[in-house]
């Protein structure tokens, strides 16, 4: 019964989020699509930061590896799209594994430092990649090829992005509510005790980092076909802090929190910018500090309290 009910909830949510795509106009569609990408990225970043407790700054770099990977392979080198997609994801997984292997061995901020360096390296490579990466101007003038004669265009591409978010959420939730997820949370809370319970701390950290970074790569690939343009600044360090804010304000460690945080902070500037201009960044900063000080469970914590009170 519970299985049937949860399947229905998933279906209803996917249908509702997809239906929106057919109703929105051109500009709103663009906003909606980018919001979906932010939600997908916030979900996987939340798993790494909020559930495994790993501070990494490479999430957008891996999105960039995915985006540039697929576009270069499919459109510059003329590889079949399916092969380019798989290869771009494999590249993300391989690079994530290589970055995680030495840095998770060390305690504390080494992962942060290693991922910071990796992010800068990715930006340098795609900015200086000459004709292959298009330099600072990036790559444009490519289109998502038809797969088996079907061209996914217009609102149907938005539906694909909804499915990307659904797939990301499903994957991460399934991992979370398992021995793997419990091991991740145990490492976050007390790595010494986790090891004493038989958790191979290093292995789990490497697995989690590789998995979440590959999901970031997948979101990057989906991003590449929204405007059919990719360029270096999107994958730089500025966005990673907004992603971190989304996860913290939404409620670190909570899947619902990651979604709510991403939607809230992505849409907030559209409301705030006409009023306070670029001052909205200051508003974000204050919001993050207030969350950390007064409500570490974030917006998700507020929602939980509401529902808990409702049931009693």
């Amino acid at each position, binding site marked *: 019964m519970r299985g049937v009910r949860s399947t229905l909830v998933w279906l209803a949510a996917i249908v509702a989020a997809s239906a929106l795509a057919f109703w929105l106009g051109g500009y709103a569609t663009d906003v909606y699509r980018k919001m979906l990408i932010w939600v997908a990225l916030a979900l996987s970043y939340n798993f790494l930061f909020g559930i495994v407790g790993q501070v990494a700054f490479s999430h957008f770099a891996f999105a960039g590896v995915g985006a540039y990977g697929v576009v270069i392979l499919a459109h510059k080198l003329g590889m079949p799209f399916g092969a380019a997609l798989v290869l771009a994801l494999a590249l993300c997984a391989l690079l994530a594994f290589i970055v995680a292997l030495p840095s998770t061995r060390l305690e504390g901020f080494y992962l942060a430092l290693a991922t910071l360096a990796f992010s800068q390296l990715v930006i340098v490579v795609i900015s200086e990649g000459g004709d292959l990466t298009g330099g600072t101007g990036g790559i444009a003038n490519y289109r998502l090829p038809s797969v088996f004669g079907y061209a996914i265009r217009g609102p149907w591409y938005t539906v694909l992005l909804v499915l990307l978010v659904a797939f990301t959420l499903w*994957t991460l939730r399934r991992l979370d509510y398992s*021995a793997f997820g419990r091991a991740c949370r*145990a490492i976050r*809370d007390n790595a010494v*005790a986790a090891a*004493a*319970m*038989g*958790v191979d701390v290093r292995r789990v950290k490497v697995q989690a980092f590789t*998995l979440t970074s590959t999901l970031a790569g997948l979101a990057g690939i989906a991003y590449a076909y929204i405007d059919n343009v990719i360029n270096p600044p999107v994958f730089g360090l500025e966005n990673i802090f907004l992603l971190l804010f989304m996860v913290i304000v939404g409620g670190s460690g909570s899947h619902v929190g990651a979604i709510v945080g991403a939607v809230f902070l992505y849409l907030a500037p559209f409301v705030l910018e006409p009023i306070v201009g670029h001052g909205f960044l200051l508003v974000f900063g204050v919001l993050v500090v207030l969350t950390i000080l007064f409500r570490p469970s974030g917006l998700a914590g507020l929602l939980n309290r509401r529902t808990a009170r409702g049931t009693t």
Partner: protein
Amino acid sequence: MSDNPLIAVGGLTKHFGGLTAVEDLGLDLFPGEILALIGPNGAGKTTTFNLIAGVFAPSAGSIMFGGARIDGLPVHRIASLGLMRTFQHNMPFAGMSLTDNILVGCHTRCDSRPLDILLGRRRVRDQEAAARRRAAELISFLGLQDRIDDHVSTLSFGEGRLLELARALAGQPRVILLDEPAAGLTQPEMARLGAAIRDIAARGIAVLLIEHDMHFLFPLAHRIVVLNFGRKIAEGEPDGIARDPEVIEAYLGEAVGGMAARQGHA
């Protein structure tokens, strides 16, 4: 008790720089036995625990577990062989519920490979169901039913001690190391803990514990090993230990020694 020791420690030595924390220590631990390590502060008890559990590699000597050498193996490998421990200070997973804390203890009994989990393999589901049953059993065994889905931050100190024990038992260990399990407990909690430890040993699990409370320990332990400055100064049944002049001088003191001896007879 069977003839073969489950844990056999021989010539165990650990130096930290110029300091010798444990020197040439030998001890055997049999299935179903409650063996206590006692001695003054700094005698090397917790270091011995950490050596057996794999936190440190010994400077010399060997540690056998079920006939295979485990010294030098990482902590998680030793745990997965069936050796679990509790800590001197409560170390709960503070962001998780009581049940989830205990389920982490089942880690070695569950397939935690991400791919198997995502594919929803039958083995994963069966092991998860078994782990949840075991966690529920342990919760009622230790009398924590009322706290089942509570956040561990709301547990009392004594309940936290019991959680440490439940988490260590969840992995169905063959050996359990308890580092001062009774420290800070009230009398009723201590009685509950003592009964639980007897019950654990009766199931054939080997129990090695460090304890400072001799009133708690003497009626409970089958055998006692006394350490002083990293060396074993005595070993035997509680009665004999309580009367050993060297032990009395080094650790127990006259009054406690006499009291413990009387309690041992009772």
